[in-house]
Protein backbone atom coordinates (compact mmCIF):
# COMPACT_ATOMS: atom_id res chain seq x y z
CA UNK A 1 0.00 0.00 0.00
CA UNK A 2 1.18 3.49 -0.80
CA UNK A 3 0.76 5.91 2.08
CA UNK A 4 -0.20 9.47 1.17
CA UNK A 5 -0.39 12.46 3.47
CA UNK A 6 -2.63 15.24 2.20
CA UNK A 7 -2.62 18.86 3.36
CA UNK A 8 -5.38 19.73 5.78
CA UNK A 9 -7.64 21.45 3.26
CA UNK A 10 -7.56 18.47 0.92
CA UNK A 11 -8.21 16.04 3.77
CA UNK A 12 -11.31 18.06 4.56
CA UNK A 13 -12.35 18.09 0.92
CA UNK A 14 -11.79 14.33 0.56
CA UNK A 15 -13.38 13.68 3.96
CA UNK A 16 -10.50 11.66 5.30
CA UNK A 17 -8.60 11.77 8.56
CA UNK A 18 -4.89 11.13 8.76
CA UNK A 19 -3.11 9.23 6.03
CA UNK A 20 -4.62 7.73 2.91
CA UNK A 21 -3.46 4.24 1.89
CA UNK A 22 -3.93 3.12 -1.70
CA UNK A 23 -3.00 0.24 -3.95
CA UNK A 24 -1.12 1.38 -7.03
CA UNK A 25 -0.90 -0.98 -9.97
CA UNK A 26 2.28 -1.10 -12.00
CA UNK A 27 5.32 1.10 -11.50
CA UNK A 28 4.91 3.48 -8.57
CA UNK A 29 5.41 6.97 -9.95
CA UNK A 30 4.02 10.39 -9.06
CA UNK A 31 1.58 10.03 -11.93
CA UNK A 32 0.43 6.56 -10.84
CA UNK A 33 -0.01 7.67 -7.24
CA UNK A 34 -2.00 10.74 -8.23
CA UNK A 35 -4.10 8.73 -10.70
CA UNK A 36 -4.99 6.31 -7.92
CA UNK A 37 -5.66 9.11 -5.46
CA UNK A 38 -8.00 10.91 -7.86
CA UNK A 39 -9.77 7.66 -8.74
CA UNK A 40 -10.66 7.15 -5.08
CA UNK A 41 -11.27 10.79 -4.30
CA UNK A 42 -12.54 12.51 -7.45
CA UNK A 43 -13.24 15.70 -5.53
CA UNK A 44 -9.46 16.15 -5.54
CA UNK A 45 -9.26 16.32 -9.31
CA UNK A 46 -8.02 19.74 -10.30
CA UNK A 47 -6.83 20.62 -6.79
CA UNK A 48 -3.34 19.07 -7.02
CA UNK A 49 -2.72 19.13 -10.77
CA UNK A 50 -4.48 20.53 -13.80
CA UNK A 51 -7.45 18.54 -15.08
CA UNK A 52 -6.18 18.32 -18.62
CA UNK A 53 -2.44 18.84 -18.67
CA UNK A 54 -1.87 17.10 -15.31
CA UNK A 55 0.70 19.78 -14.56
CA UNK A 56 1.26 20.29 -10.84
CA UNK A 57 -0.43 23.39 -9.44
CA UNK A 58 2.08 26.12 -8.72
CA UNK A 59 1.63 26.13 -4.93
CA UNK A 60 1.61 22.37 -4.45
CA UNK A 61 4.74 20.39 -3.59
CA UNK A 62 5.54 16.66 -3.47
CA UNK A 63 7.91 15.47 -0.74
CA UNK A 64 9.19 11.97 -0.04
CA UNK A 65 12.05 10.62 2.09
CA UNK A 66 13.09 14.17 2.99
CA UNK A 67 13.44 15.13 -0.67
CA UNK A 68 11.47 17.61 -2.75
CA UNK A 69 10.30 15.65 -5.80
CA UNK A 70 8.09 18.44 -7.13
CA UNK A 71 10.27 19.12 -10.11
CA UNK A 72 11.00 15.51 -10.99
CA UNK A 73 9.35 13.82 -13.93
CA UNK A 74 5.90 12.49 -13.03
CA UNK A 75 6.97 9.20 -14.57
CA UNK A 76 10.12 8.76 -12.51
CA UNK A 77 9.86 5.77 -10.12
CA UNK A 78 9.37 6.87 -6.52
CA UNK A 79 11.85 5.74 -3.82
CA UNK A 80 11.59 2.17 -2.56
CA UNK A 81 10.53 3.41 0.86
CA UNK A 82 7.39 4.86 -0.76
CA UNK A 83 6.76 1.66 -2.74
CA UNK A 84 7.02 -0.51 0.37
CA UNK A 85 4.96 1.89 2.45
CA UNK A 86 7.65 2.48 5.04
CA UNK A 87 7.59 6.21 4.20
CA UNK A 88 4.61 8.32 3.14
CA UNK A 89 4.31 10.41 -0.02
CA UNK A 90 3.60 13.95 1.10
CA UNK A 91 1.43 16.38 -0.84
CA UNK A 92 2.07 19.79 0.63
CA UNK A 93 0.66 23.26 0.22
CA UNK A 94 3.72 25.39 -0.49
CA UNK A 95 4.70 28.13 1.90
CA UNK A 96 3.35 31.13 0.04
CA UNK A 97 2.08 33.51 2.65
CA UNK A 98 -1.57 34.07 3.48
Amino acid at each position, binding site marked *: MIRIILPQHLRTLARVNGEVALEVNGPVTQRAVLDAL*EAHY*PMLRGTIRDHVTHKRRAFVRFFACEQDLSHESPDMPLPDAIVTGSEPFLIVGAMAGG
Partner: protein
Amino acid sequence: MSSVRVLVGTRKGAFILTSDGARKRWDVQGPHFGGWELYHLKGSPADPNRLYASQTSSWFGQVIQRSDDGGKTWSAPGTKPEDLMGSDGMPKGESNMFLYDTSAETGKPLTTHQHYDGSQRPWEFKRVWHLEPSLTDPDTVYAGVEDAALFRSTDGGHTWHELAGLREVKGNLWQPGAGGMCLHTVVLDRTNPQRIYIAISAAGAFRTDDGGKTWRAINRGLKSQFELPDPDADVGHCVHNITMHASRPNVLFMQKHWDVLRSDDAGGSWHEISGNLPSDFGFPIAVHAHEPNTVYVVPIKSDSEHYPPEGKLRVYRSRTGGNEWKALTEGLPQENCYVNILRDAMTVDQLDPCGIYFGTTGGQVYGSIDDGDNWAPIVRDLPAVLSVEVQTL
Protein backbone atom coordinates in the same frame (compact mmCIF):
# COMPACT_ATOMS: atom_id res chain seq x y z
CA MET B 1 -43.92 33.43 9.60
CA SER B 2 -41.38 34.13 6.90
CA SER B 3 -37.70 33.91 7.58
CA VAL B 4 -34.47 34.94 5.91
CA ARG B 5 -31.20 33.17 5.27
CA VAL B 6 -28.20 35.38 4.53
CA LEU B 7 -25.33 33.68 2.71
CA VAL B 8 -21.98 35.33 3.36
CA GLY B 9 -18.81 34.52 1.46
CA THR B 10 -15.53 35.64 3.01
CA ARG B 11 -11.78 35.37 2.48
CA LYS B 12 -11.65 32.49 4.95
CA GLY B 13 -14.91 30.61 4.68
CA ALA B 14 -18.68 30.89 4.38
CA PHE B 15 -21.19 31.88 7.02
CA ILE B 16 -24.94 31.45 7.08
CA LEU B 17 -27.00 33.93 9.07
CA THR B 18 -30.63 33.11 9.76
CA SER B 19 -33.49 34.96 11.37
CA ASP B 20 -37.24 34.97 11.48
CA GLY B 21 -39.15 37.64 9.61
CA ALA B 22 -38.60 40.19 12.35
CA ARG B 23 -34.88 40.06 11.49
CA LYS B 24 -33.79 41.18 14.95
CA ARG B 25 -32.25 38.02 16.41
CA TRP B 26 -29.77 36.17 14.27
CA ASP B 27 -28.18 32.76 14.35
CA VAL B 28 -24.69 32.66 12.85
CA GLN B 29 -23.39 29.36 11.48
CA GLY B 30 -19.91 28.75 10.13
CA PRO B 31 -17.30 28.87 9.00
CA HIS B 32 -18.10 26.43 6.27
CA PHE B 33 -15.03 25.55 4.18
CA GLY B 34 -12.82 27.30 6.74
CA GLY B 35 -9.62 28.73 5.33
CA TRP B 36 -10.87 28.85 1.72
CA GLU B 37 -11.97 31.92 -0.17
CA LEU B 38 -15.71 31.82 -0.77
CA TYR B 39 -16.24 34.24 -3.59
CA HIS B 40 -19.98 33.71 -3.84
CA LEU B 41 -22.87 31.64 -2.56
CA LYS B 42 -26.38 31.79 -3.92
CA GLY B 43 -29.63 29.88 -3.52
CA SER B 44 -31.89 28.65 -6.28
CA PRO B 45 -35.08 30.71 -6.64
CA ALA B 46 -36.77 27.50 -7.80
CA ASP B 47 -35.70 25.45 -4.76
CA PRO B 48 -34.50 27.41 -1.74
CA ASN B 49 -32.80 24.35 -0.27
CA ARG B 50 -30.50 24.17 -3.28
CA LEU B 51 -27.45 26.36 -2.70
CA TYR B 52 -24.33 26.73 -4.79
CA ALA B 53 -20.98 27.98 -3.53
CA SER B 54 -17.71 28.92 -5.18
CA GLN B 55 -14.83 27.75 -2.99
CA THR B 56 -11.38 28.73 -4.20
CA SER B 57 -7.76 28.79 -3.10
CA SER B 58 -4.49 29.96 -4.55
CA TRP B 59 -3.04 26.60 -3.56
CA PHE B 60 -5.71 24.14 -4.59
CA GLY B 61 -7.76 25.95 -7.20
CA GLN B 62 -11.51 25.92 -7.72
CA VAL B 63 -14.11 23.75 -6.02
CA ILE B 64 -17.85 24.02 -6.63
CA GLN B 65 -19.94 23.06 -3.62
CA ARG B 66 -23.65 22.33 -3.53
CA SER B 67 -26.12 21.95 -0.72
CA ASP B 68 -29.54 20.35 -1.07
CA ASP B 69 -30.65 21.06 2.47
CA GLY B 70 -30.33 24.80 2.81
CA GLY B 71 -26.67 24.82 3.78
CA LYS B 72 -26.65 22.17 6.51
CA THR B 73 -24.53 19.78 4.45
CA TRP B 74 -22.46 20.33 1.33
CA SER B 75 -20.76 18.23 -1.30
CA ALA B 76 -18.90 18.75 -4.53
CA PRO B 77 -21.39 17.70 -7.23
CA GLY B 78 -20.58 14.43 -8.92
CA THR B 79 -18.37 13.01 -6.21
CA LYS B 80 -20.84 10.77 -4.40
CA PRO B 81 -20.00 7.05 -4.64
CA GLU B 82 -22.60 6.43 -7.33
CA ASP B 83 -21.14 9.23 -9.42
CA LEU B 84 -17.52 8.26 -9.07
CA MET B 85 -16.57 6.57 -12.30
CA GLY B 86 -17.34 7.44 -15.87
CA SER B 87 -18.06 4.87 -18.56
CA ASP B 88 -14.40 4.94 -19.54
CA GLY B 89 -13.39 3.88 -16.05
CA MET B 90 -11.92 7.24 -15.21
CA PRO B 91 -13.05 9.24 -12.24
CA LYS B 92 -15.44 12.04 -13.03
CA GLY B 93 -14.91 14.78 -10.50
CA GLU B 94 -15.75 17.32 -13.18
CA SER B 95 -17.57 19.83 -11.04
CA ASN B 96 -14.49 22.01 -10.74
CA MET B 97 -13.49 21.64 -14.40
CA PHE B 98 -13.96 24.84 -16.38
CA LEU B 99 -12.53 24.34 -19.85
CA TYR B 100 -12.73 27.15 -22.35
CA ASP B 101 -14.54 26.11 -25.48
CA THR B 102 -12.49 26.26 -28.65
CA SER B 103 -14.63 23.87 -30.65
CA ALA B 104 -15.35 24.47 -34.30
CA GLU B 105 -19.07 24.15 -33.61
CA THR B 106 -19.03 27.34 -31.58
CA GLY B 107 -16.94 29.23 -34.06
CA LYS B 108 -13.49 28.83 -32.51
CA PRO B 109 -13.83 31.83 -30.20
CA LEU B 110 -10.95 34.17 -29.62
CA THR B 111 -8.33 32.63 -27.43
CA THR B 112 -6.32 35.67 -26.42
CA HIS B 113 -7.17 38.90 -24.61
CA GLN B 114 -5.27 42.06 -23.89
CA HIS B 115 -2.92 42.05 -20.92
CA TYR B 116 -1.86 44.97 -18.73
CA ASP B 117 1.17 45.56 -20.91
CA GLY B 118 -0.81 45.56 -24.15
CA SER B 119 0.32 42.09 -25.19
CA GLN B 120 -2.13 39.33 -26.04
CA ARG B 121 -2.46 36.51 -23.50
CA PRO B 122 -4.38 33.23 -23.73
CA TRP B 123 -7.46 32.75 -21.61
CA GLU B 124 -6.56 30.88 -18.41
CA PHE B 125 -9.12 29.80 -15.84
CA LYS B 126 -8.51 31.10 -12.33
CA ARG B 127 -11.71 31.04 -10.29
CA VAL B 128 -15.48 31.43 -10.21
CA TRP B 129 -16.51 34.88 -9.09
CA HIS B 130 -20.28 34.59 -9.31
CA LEU B 131 -22.86 31.82 -9.39
CA GLU B 132 -26.33 32.64 -10.69
CA PRO B 133 -28.90 29.86 -10.36
CA SER B 134 -31.68 29.68 -12.93
CA LEU B 135 -34.94 31.31 -11.95
CA THR B 136 -36.89 28.17 -12.82
CA ASP B 137 -34.65 25.07 -12.75
CA PRO B 138 -32.62 24.17 -9.64
CA ASP B 139 -30.18 22.13 -11.74
CA THR B 140 -29.31 24.99 -14.07
CA VAL B 141 -26.77 27.50 -12.84
CA TYR B 142 -24.47 30.03 -14.50
CA ALA B 143 -20.89 30.71 -13.42
CA GLY B 144 -19.06 33.94 -14.15
CA VAL B 145 -15.36 33.20 -14.10
CA GLU B 146 -11.88 34.74 -14.30
CA ASP B 147 -10.46 34.90 -16.99
CA ALA B 148 -13.74 36.36 -18.11
CA ALA B 149 -16.23 33.89 -19.52
CA LEU B 150 -19.69 32.57 -18.77
CA PHE B 151 -20.24 28.88 -18.07
CA ARG B 152 -23.50 27.01 -17.59
CA SER B 153 -24.31 23.76 -15.84
CA THR B 154 -27.62 22.02 -16.46
CA ASP B 155 -26.92 19.06 -14.18
CA GLY B 156 -26.68 20.69 -10.79
CA GLY B 157 -23.05 21.66 -11.09
CA HIS B 158 -21.68 18.26 -12.15
CA THR B 159 -20.39 19.57 -15.47
CA TRP B 160 -19.85 23.03 -16.94
CA HIS B 161 -19.87 24.28 -20.51
CA GLU B 162 -18.81 27.68 -21.73
CA LEU B 163 -21.19 29.98 -23.60
CA ALA B 164 -18.33 30.78 -25.89
CA GLY B 165 -20.08 33.25 -28.17
CA LEU B 166 -19.54 35.93 -25.54
CA ARG B 167 -15.80 36.05 -26.19
CA GLU B 168 -16.45 36.78 -29.84
CA VAL B 169 -17.53 40.30 -28.89
CA LYS B 170 -14.12 41.92 -29.30
CA GLY B 171 -12.59 39.64 -26.68
CA ASN B 172 -9.14 40.52 -27.91
CA LEU B 173 -9.69 44.03 -26.50
CA TRP B 174 -10.77 42.93 -23.02
CA GLN B 175 -8.22 43.42 -20.29
CA PRO B 176 -7.87 42.70 -16.57
CA GLY B 177 -9.02 45.23 -14.03
CA ALA B 178 -7.06 45.56 -10.82
CA GLY B 179 -8.81 42.48 -9.46
CA GLY B 180 -8.27 40.40 -12.56
CA MET B 181 -10.29 39.94 -15.75
CA CYS B 182 -13.45 38.62 -14.21
CA LEU B 183 -17.05 38.08 -15.21
CA HIS B 184 -18.70 39.05 -11.95
CA THR B 185 -22.30 39.92 -12.71
CA VAL B 186 -25.04 37.75 -14.21
CA VAL B 187 -28.59 39.14 -14.37
CA LEU B 188 -31.45 36.94 -15.57
CA ASP B 189 -34.70 38.30 -16.96
CA ARG B 190 -37.76 36.66 -15.44
CA THR B 191 -39.94 37.77 -18.36
CA ASN B 192 -37.60 36.53 -21.06
CA PRO B 193 -35.60 33.34 -20.39
CA GLN B 194 -33.53 33.93 -23.52
CA ARG B 195 -32.17 37.24 -22.24
CA ILE B 196 -29.12 37.41 -19.96
CA TYR B 197 -27.02 40.40 -18.97
CA ILE B 198 -23.44 40.01 -17.81
CA ALA B 199 -20.67 42.41 -16.82
CA ILE B 200 -16.90 42.07 -16.94
CA SER B 201 -14.00 44.03 -15.47
CA ALA B 202 -12.64 45.40 -17.66
CA ALA B 203 -14.67 44.77 -20.78
CA GLY B 204 -18.10 46.21 -20.00
CA ALA B 205 -21.69 45.00 -20.13
CA PHE B 206 -23.07 42.47 -22.60
CA ARG B 207 -26.47 41.01 -23.43
CA THR B 208 -27.72 37.89 -25.13
CA ASP B 209 -31.26 37.51 -26.47
CA ASP B 210 -30.89 33.90 -27.58
CA GLY B 211 -29.99 32.10 -24.37
CA GLY B 212 -26.27 32.71 -24.63
CA LYS B 213 -25.43 31.76 -28.22
CA THR B 214 -24.75 35.27 -29.44
CA TRP B 215 -23.96 38.42 -27.52
CA ARG B 216 -23.68 42.15 -28.07
CA ALA B 217 -21.88 44.83 -26.13
CA ILE B 218 -24.28 47.24 -24.40
CA ASN B 219 -21.97 50.06 -23.42
CA ARG B 220 -23.33 53.04 -25.33
CA GLY B 221 -23.33 56.05 -23.04
CA LEU B 222 -20.56 54.79 -20.76
CA LYS B 223 -17.65 57.18 -20.54
CA SER B 224 -14.26 56.13 -19.18
CA GLN B 225 -12.11 59.15 -19.85
CA PHE B 226 -9.43 58.22 -17.30
CA GLU B 227 -9.36 54.51 -18.03
CA LEU B 228 -9.56 54.24 -21.82
CA PRO B 229 -7.90 56.16 -24.64
CA ASP B 230 -11.32 56.33 -26.32
CA PRO B 231 -13.73 57.17 -23.47
CA ASP B 232 -16.72 56.00 -25.53
CA ALA B 233 -15.19 52.72 -26.67
CA ASP B 234 -17.50 49.83 -27.50
CA VAL B 235 -15.73 47.53 -25.01
CA GLY B 236 -13.11 47.94 -22.31
CA HIS B 237 -15.14 49.69 -19.62
CA CYS B 238 -14.72 48.63 -16.02
CA VAL B 239 -18.31 47.89 -15.04
CA HIS B 240 -18.51 46.94 -11.37
CA ASN B 241 -22.09 45.76 -10.95
CA ILE B 242 -25.51 45.80 -12.63
CA THR B 243 -28.95 45.22 -11.15
CA MET B 244 -32.60 45.34 -12.18
CA HIS B 245 -36.01 45.09 -10.56
CA ALA B 246 -37.81 41.95 -11.69
CA SER B 247 -40.97 43.89 -12.54
CA ARG B 248 -39.17 46.28 -14.87
CA PRO B 249 -36.63 44.22 -16.81
CA ASN B 250 -35.75 46.90 -19.34
CA VAL B 251 -34.52 49.26 -16.63
CA LEU B 252 -30.97 48.56 -15.48
CA PHE B 253 -28.83 50.30 -12.90
CA MET B 254 -25.05 50.19 -13.07
CA GLN B 255 -22.20 51.03 -10.75
CA LYS B 256 -19.23 51.59 -13.00
CA HIS B 257 -15.62 52.10 -11.87
CA TRP B 258 -16.53 55.76 -11.80
CA ASP B 259 -20.18 56.81 -12.43
CA VAL B 260 -23.56 55.43 -11.50
CA LEU B 261 -25.70 54.92 -14.58
CA ARG B 262 -29.15 53.87 -15.71
CA SER B 263 -30.54 52.35 -18.86
CA ASP B 264 -34.23 52.42 -19.77
CA ASP B 265 -33.88 50.30 -22.89
CA ALA B 266 -32.31 47.03 -21.73
CA GLY B 267 -28.81 48.38 -22.02
CA GLY B 268 -29.25 49.95 -25.45
CA SER B 269 -28.02 53.23 -23.99
CA TRP B 270 -26.98 54.52 -20.59
CA HIS B 271 -27.13 57.88 -18.87
CA GLU B 272 -25.42 59.00 -15.72
CA ILE B 273 -27.45 59.33 -12.51
CA SER B 274 -24.63 60.07 -10.05
CA GLY B 275 -26.26 63.39 -9.09
CA ASN B 276 -25.26 64.55 -5.61
CA LEU B 277 -23.26 61.49 -4.54
CA PRO B 278 -20.09 62.43 -2.63
CA SER B 279 -18.20 60.05 -4.92
CA ASP B 280 -19.56 58.07 -7.82
CA PHE B 281 -16.91 55.40 -7.47
CA GLY B 282 -18.08 52.21 -5.78
CA PHE B 283 -18.78 48.55 -6.26
CA PRO B 284 -22.29 47.21 -5.47
CA ILE B 285 -25.67 48.55 -6.53
CA ALA B 286 -29.06 47.22 -5.44
CA VAL B 287 -32.75 47.92 -6.05
CA HIS B 288 -35.44 47.88 -3.37
CA ALA B 289 -37.59 44.74 -3.48
CA HIS B 290 -40.91 46.59 -3.81
CA GLU B 291 -39.96 50.01 -5.17
CA PRO B 292 -38.38 49.69 -8.63
CA ASN B 293 -37.22 53.29 -8.52
CA THR B 294 -35.43 53.02 -5.17
CA VAL B 295 -31.74 52.33 -5.63
CA TYR B 296 -28.85 51.85 -3.18
CA VAL B 297 -25.12 52.44 -3.62
CA VAL B 298 -22.16 52.73 -1.24
CA PRO B 299 -19.82 55.49 -2.41
CA ILE B 300 -16.11 54.80 -2.11
CA LYS B 301 -13.59 57.63 -2.19
CA SER B 302 -11.67 56.67 -5.32
CA ASP B 303 -10.11 53.89 -7.32
CA SER B 304 -6.83 54.48 -5.55
CA GLU B 305 -8.38 54.79 -2.06
CA HIS B 306 -10.81 51.95 -1.59
CA TYR B 307 -12.60 53.26 1.49
CA PRO B 308 -15.55 55.55 2.22
CA PRO B 309 -15.13 59.31 1.81
CA GLU B 310 -14.20 61.06 5.06
CA GLY B 311 -14.05 57.74 6.91
CA LYS B 312 -17.86 57.72 7.10
CA LEU B 313 -19.67 54.57 6.05
CA ARG B 314 -22.75 55.77 4.21
CA VAL B 315 -25.25 53.95 2.07
CA TYR B 316 -26.91 56.31 -0.38
CA ARG B 317 -30.52 55.82 -1.43
CA SER B 318 -32.34 57.36 -4.34
CA ARG B 319 -36.12 57.07 -4.42
CA THR B 320 -36.25 58.76 -7.80
CA GLY B 321 -34.34 56.24 -9.86
CA GLY B 322 -31.12 58.19 -9.50
CA ASN B 323 -29.65 61.70 -9.42
CA GLU B 324 -31.20 62.63 -6.06
CA TRP B 325 -29.45 60.69 -3.33
CA LYS B 326 -29.83 60.69 0.44
CA ALA B 327 -27.13 59.54 2.85
CA LEU B 328 -28.25 56.75 5.20
CA THR B 329 -26.03 56.83 8.26
CA GLU B 330 -28.03 55.77 11.28
CA GLY B 331 -26.26 52.84 12.92
CA LEU B 332 -23.25 52.98 10.61
CA PRO B 333 -19.81 54.20 11.75
CA GLN B 334 -19.39 57.89 10.96
CA GLU B 335 -15.75 58.24 11.86
CA ASN B 336 -12.54 56.29 11.31
CA CYS B 337 -14.16 53.78 8.98
CA TYR B 338 -11.90 52.62 6.15
CA VAL B 339 -13.48 49.41 4.92
CA ASN B 340 -14.59 48.59 1.40
CA ILE B 341 -17.84 47.02 0.23
CA LEU B 342 -17.26 44.67 -2.69
CA ARG B 343 -19.47 44.27 -5.74
CA ASP B 344 -21.39 41.17 -4.67
CA ALA B 345 -21.64 42.21 -1.04
CA MET B 346 -25.00 44.04 -0.99
CA THR B 347 -28.44 42.58 -1.45
CA VAL B 348 -32.12 42.97 -0.51
CA ASP B 349 -34.68 40.53 0.82
CA GLN B 350 -38.28 40.24 -0.35
CA LEU B 351 -40.03 40.99 2.94
CA ASP B 352 -42.10 44.07 3.62
CA PRO B 353 -40.57 46.29 4.81
CA CYS B 354 -37.62 45.45 2.64
CA GLY B 355 -34.43 44.31 4.33
CA ILE B 356 -31.06 45.45 2.97
CA TYR B 357 -27.76 43.77 3.81
CA PHE B 358 -24.15 44.48 3.05
CA GLY B 359 -20.79 43.14 4.15
CA THR B 360 -17.47 44.91 4.50
CA THR B 361 -13.84 44.03 4.04
CA GLY B 362 -13.58 44.64 7.79
CA GLY B 363 -15.77 41.62 8.43
CA GLN B 364 -19.00 43.33 9.42
CA VAL B 365 -22.37 42.39 7.97
CA TYR B 366 -24.90 45.17 8.43
CA GLY B 367 -28.63 44.90 7.99
CA SER B 368 -31.53 47.31 7.79
CA ILE B 369 -35.18 46.33 8.14
CA ASP B 370 -36.65 49.72 7.28
CA ASP B 371 -35.52 50.48 3.74
CA GLY B 372 -32.10 51.64 4.95
CA ASP B 373 -33.15 54.32 7.44
CA ASN B 374 -31.55 52.41 10.32
CA TRP B 375 -28.74 49.88 10.34
CA ALA B 376 -27.37 47.40 12.82
CA PRO B 377 -24.52 44.91 12.62
CA ILE B 378 -25.65 41.30 12.39
CA VAL B 379 -22.10 40.11 12.95
CA ARG B 380 -18.96 42.18 13.36
CA ASP B 381 -15.79 40.19 13.19
CA LEU B 382 -15.85 37.86 10.21
CA PRO B 383 -12.98 37.63 7.73
CA ALA B 384 -13.18 40.15 4.88
CA VAL B 385 -16.59 39.79 3.26
CA LEU B 386 -16.59 38.99 -0.45
CA SER B 387 -20.30 38.43 -1.06
CA VAL B 388 -23.69 38.68 0.61
CA GLU B 389 -26.87 37.12 -0.73
CA VAL B 390 -30.19 36.62 0.99
CA GLN B 391 -33.01 34.13 0.62
CA THR B 392 -36.51 34.98 1.75
CA LEU B 393 -38.05 31.72 2.94
